[in-house]
């Protein structure tokens, strides 16, 4: 017999049955019945954030570092609208999230009631799916369905909007069941014929490259294992997008580094010159392809993606395979082994020789400075002193994010949390909070910019409240550095509104929050300061004063091709950028 309970009780029961242990939220009038139920149980711990955007990013950090869905609870109106940025972020980066929003009572909907917003209307384009629950009878089914939709197929955020009267109304609870959804049936297994064709192409390739992305991480740790095995078997070079870092170990000699706008010279040239490209769980985003009509002109392209709409969206491919990365790789490996397929070793040796000459350019080298801390040096030292399997890195958005991707190195999946698709400044602190909630004993560091952190700085208060010892490592260049770099490149060095004026004293700010502040200004004090940060038990804001005018290289200017990269030793940034390029973001 199924029990009768109130809508609010159903919410908590469903969360428990879905295995949810933590939710990130902020109360308000339209969710008080649910908060009342939270108060009366222990199975689900609620983390009170300081802004609903923080709840969404915390849920993203939680999800990305565990593979489990992140859960958010916010009130109606402003609570829901504040969550929109994080929902959009999760949609762009395919992060599983269930966001429960309160809504005004059903009879008030449409009347411009106090704190009413058309939440399903507003969030329709920024969620994978959303629901307005009009009756408590529908609530159990919708909640379970929300988790199913959020976590399967291409993961994404799902909003469940629950009017306050529905939270009070009584209905029968239903446990999650294994019934198939009427319409939603993501495809997991790839088409075997396409896999045969792909294996054939791969075994004949002379200049192959693996181009991997966030899909490998989303597919779970097994996908990373299978990827490693396949890459080893073939001996091919491998690169990854920003979102895919960690799926393949960066210490491996076959690793070319990240590709794309700020990717390595060798990765981008390998992409440009390859004859067979094996895209696994990446989506030919514009940060990756650069100028589309010059993108990898001579390659046959294999594309494995769970989302059929990612296939042939930006780049036409030769062998599309719709399916989950782990499932497809498993089949591919099986076919590869059963056919006793071999790569073309001779051609591969020539290809590697060519790649080695590109590597020889040492595109990530930079001029050291013994008086001031270079941001690249700061990340290198941070990496050396903090690396390990129990270290998790989040970032904000800007130059520091790219330096983190270039100079911090990842050996395992789920250790790297960054806002890739949306590029949301303010992501890093709340994401770190979410990661730390999931991994209380881990070292969680937000590699940050001084401008970005001010967008969600209040979440330090959350970290202090819940004793989450996150470390906020600010590369303080007193500029919105990435904006300044583009202004230098495209707008004649007119630094319109990109100087970080009137900055707070971050050390005092940390202290005001009840956290610890640390500052380093000289290269020779950096290591000790980082060690001190690691030894500090609670949250730390680390103000790392770095050189102000550093640019982030290599760089493919927007609208340029992969073989038109700018390197650090090129003379400054004086390149011609086409009008079409200037119009791009």
């Amino acid at each position, binding site marked *: 017999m199924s029990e009768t309970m109130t809508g609010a009780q159903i919410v908590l029961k469903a969360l428990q049955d879905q295995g949810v242990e933590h939710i990130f939220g902020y109360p308000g009038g339209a969710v008080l019945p649910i908060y009342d139920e939270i108060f009366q149980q222990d199975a689900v711990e609620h983390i009170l954030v300081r802004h609903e955007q923080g709840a969404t990013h915390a849920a993203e950090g939680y999800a990305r570092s565990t593979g489990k869905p992140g859960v958010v609870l916010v009130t109606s109106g402003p609570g829901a609208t504040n969550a929109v940025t994080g929902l959009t972020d999760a949609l762009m980066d395919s992060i599983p999230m269930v966001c429960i929003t309160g809504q005004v009572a059903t009879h008030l909907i449409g009347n411009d009631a106090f704190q009413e917003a058309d939440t399903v209307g507003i969030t329709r*384009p920024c969620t994978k*799916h959303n629901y307005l629950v009009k009756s408590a009878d529908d609530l159990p089914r919708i909640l379970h369905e929300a988790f199913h939709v959020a976590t399967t197929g291409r993961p994404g955020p799902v909003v469940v909007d629950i009017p306050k009267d529905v939270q009070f109304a009584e209905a029968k609870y239903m446990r999650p069941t294994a019934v198939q959804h009427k319409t939603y049936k993501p495809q997991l297994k790839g088409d075997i014929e396409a896999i045969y064709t792909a294996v054939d192409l791969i075994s004949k390739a002379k200049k192959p490259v693996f181009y991997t992305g966030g899909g490998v991480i989303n597919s779970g740790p097994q996908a990373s294992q299978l990827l490693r095995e396949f890459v080893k078997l073939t001996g091919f070079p491998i690169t990854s997008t920003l979102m895919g870092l960690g799926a393949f170990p960066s210490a491996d000699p076959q690793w070319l580094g990240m590709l794309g706008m700020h990717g390595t010279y060798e990765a981008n040239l390998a992409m440009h010159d390859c004859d067979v490209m094996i895209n696994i769980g990446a989506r030919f985003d514009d940060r990756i392809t650069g100028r589309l009509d010059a993108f990898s002109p001579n390659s046959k392209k294999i594309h494995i993606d769970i989302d*059929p*709409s990612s296939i042939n969206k930006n780049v*036409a491919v030769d062998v599309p395979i719709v399916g989950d990365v782990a499932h497809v790789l498993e089949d591919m490996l099986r076919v590869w082994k059963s056919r006793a397929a071999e790569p073309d070793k001779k051609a591969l040796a020539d290809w590697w020789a060519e790649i080695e000459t590109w590597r020889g350019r040492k595109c990530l080298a930079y001029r050291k400075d013994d008086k001031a801390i270079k941001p690249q040096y700061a990340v290198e030292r941070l990496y050396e002193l903090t690396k390990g399997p129990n270290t998790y890195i989040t970032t904000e958005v800007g130059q520091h994010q790219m330096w983190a991707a270039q100079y911090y190195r990842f050996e395992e999946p789920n250790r790297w949390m960054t806002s890739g698709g949306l590029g949301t400044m303010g992501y890093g602190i709340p994401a770190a909070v979410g990661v730390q909630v999931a991994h209380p004993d881990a070292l969680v560091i937000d590699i940050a910019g001084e401008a970005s952190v001010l967008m969600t700085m209040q979440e330090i208060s959350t970290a202090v409240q819940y004793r989450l010892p996150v470390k906020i490592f600010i590369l303080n260049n007193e500029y919105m550095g990435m904006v300044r770099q583009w202004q230098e490149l495209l707008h004649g060095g007119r630094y319109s509104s990109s100087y970080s004026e009137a900055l707070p004293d971050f050390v005092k700010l940390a202290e005001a929050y009840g956290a610890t502040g640390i500052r380093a200004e000289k290269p020779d004090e950096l290591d000790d300061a980082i060690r001190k940060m690691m030894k500090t038990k609670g949250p730390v804001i680390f103000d790392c004063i770095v050189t102000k005018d550093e640019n982030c290289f290599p760089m493919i200017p927007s609208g340029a091709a992969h073989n038109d990269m700018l390197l650090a030793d090129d003379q400054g940034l004086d390149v011609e950028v086409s009008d079409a390029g200037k119009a791009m973001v």
Partner: protein
Amino acid sequence: MTTQDQINTHTISVLVDNEAGVLARVIGLFSGRGYNIDSLTVAEVDDGAHTSRITVVTTGTPMVIEQIKAQLGRLVPVHRVVDLTVETDSVERELALIKVSGKGEARVEALRMSEAFRARVVDATPDSFVFELTGRTEKIDAFIGLMRPLGLKEVSRTGVAAIARGAEAM
């Protein structure tokens, strides 16, 4: 121009669960991603199963049309997406109500034309007609074109309803 750049018109049928907001999802997808809607019709087609059929006439390059279909297929309440233009031979019909007013020669000519097009007169006053016309979009366009100099006042069209020929269901 290669076939890859060629812009073609496609009629796409989408079978959806008839739940609140489903039409908004489809329309939002088209406007959000910058796809064209030339015409759109929607109505419940199975009240037992609560399914509605949406027929969209859209234009785009082959790659864009493929995208539109994939994006539609990704919406959670969508059962099926069929491109009637490429996957099958189909019948397409539109219904239009067309108001024409005038006297004398023009009025006689309008009525004569309506007979040639097999339009029905569904309303008449001493100086106006409302014609009802069914047919392919081009036929309706042609009739409206002919009515223009004869006192065309107002047009109301349903947009295209379409179905595949033969015994198979979508």
